[in-house]
């Protein structure tokens, strides 16, 4: 009797390997989202500056990530910059760098939008009680902006998780790549391998991303309640 396709997931160390791959995906995404968010807040604050010149630089930075595909960024950094500067970086490190820079650009734009949407008078009334610019951002503007930017930020985070699947192309073994390897290994014994393995990978991505949008909804409800 031909073995059931689903058994491929439980053969040998397949399941363990898939989870190891998932950890690589999660690690790249989590670190990049964290660094990207922090840099993005700084960028967003700078972006609201009165200086036209500073604003143009921020805009240009964002457009570089919007116009140039992330895959090209990965290639340029992994093959180009490392050889040009004669440094040795692992694919995972390069991935984290590129995704952090991208996250910062998009997050900066989200933070800028949220800050600019706040009523101008909030700044005045904060200043009127003697807050310095730092306190003003810390206690008045950022907390209010966070609420407004939450949907966009969560959307960005899920996009980043999904886009990490590109890292296979610079040799990082993430969950998608592990899946591919397993399928190739068992192609003959189990013809339906790709259905089961990719189906499982599909569910894994869902398990990572779904809580994010769930958290965002819970927070939004709590803040509006």
């Amino acid at each position, binding site marked *: 009797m031909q073995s059931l396709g689903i058994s491929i997931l439980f053969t040998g160390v397949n399941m363990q390997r898939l989870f190891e791959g998932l950890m690589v995906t999660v690690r790249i995404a989590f670190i990049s989202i964290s660094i990207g968010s922090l840099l993005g807040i700084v960028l967003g604050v700078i972006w609201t500056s009165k200086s036209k010149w500073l604003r143009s630089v921020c805009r240009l930075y964002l457009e570089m990530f919007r116009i140039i595909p992330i895959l090209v960024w990965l290639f340029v950094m992994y093959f180009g910059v490392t050889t040009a500067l004669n440094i040795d970086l692992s694919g995972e490190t390069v991935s984290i760098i590129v995704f952090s820079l991208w996250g910062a650009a998009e997050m900066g734009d989200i933070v800028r939008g949220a800050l600019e949407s706040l009523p101008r*008078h909030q700044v*005045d*009334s904060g200043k009127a*009680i003697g*807050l310095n610019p730092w306190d003003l951002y810390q*206690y*008045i503007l950022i*907390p209010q902006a966070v609420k407004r930017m939450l949907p966009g930020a969560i959307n960005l985070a899920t996009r980043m998780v999904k886009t990490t699947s590109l890292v296979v192309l610079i040799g990082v073994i993430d969950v998608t790549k592990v899946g591919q390897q397993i399928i190739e290994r068992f192609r003959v014994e189990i013809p339906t391998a790709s259905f089961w393995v990719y189906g499982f990978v599909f569910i894994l991505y869902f398990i990572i991303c779904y809580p994010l949008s769930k958290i965002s909804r819970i927070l939004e409800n709590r803040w509006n309640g």
Partner: protein
Amino acid sequence: MEWIGVLIVNKKDSRVLLEIKNLYKKYGETTVLDNINLSISKGEVIVILGPSGCGKSTLLRCLNGLEKIQGGDIIFRDKSLVNGDVNWQEVRQQIGMVFQNYELFPHMTVIENIILGPVKVQKRDKKEVMEQARQLLDRVGLLDRENSYPRQLSGGQKQRVAIVRALCMNPEIMLFDEVTAALDPEMVREVLDVMLGLAKQGMTMIVVTHELSFARAVADRIVFIDKGRICEITEPREFFTKPKTERARHFLNRFQY
């Protein structure tokens, strides 16, 4: 009832607290304020009247540095706010300001709004500040709302909280910028009553308003501004019965129906 926690001063004190000399302000090429001279003594209540767009609000905003001025000088407690190093964060603790649109911080409760400045800026003891805040809230009849969020309050209540927020910094002088202009008519009274009580207690105040009968009741002097210049500075009784200038007469006539 007494204003506990608010500086009580002797009305007769004639020490000059704030002096505006030759103030000049422009936006781009448009002159907004020109040749403004005014000195305010401790405990005095000045009401600024004038048609919309005459520069009244801008003048108030210049006094605590929310607007830069292009000429003249502002002397507060014998120190210039224009020439030399000005630490505006320090100055603003002593010059309280209340705005037309309340501008409470929507993500904080009433009590958090009030104690933010005293605790974070003035580094005062939180317990002591809370106590003062509660006394002030009690005085404006809002003690039971200390844990409410601004969105749960009416306009008049928000404005009273905004006044308390400014008072809790223990300012030397209070600036009121058309604080009842955005309120529904039935809520104007409750806010004006608070201001009147404060004036009686001896707070130094500069008030921009369109409430003429309130101006008459509260002011020591009326400053009438038109087209960015002071037209006259008069005692209220005189201003409302026989104003010196034609422009002021014209202005007052428009309010009579």
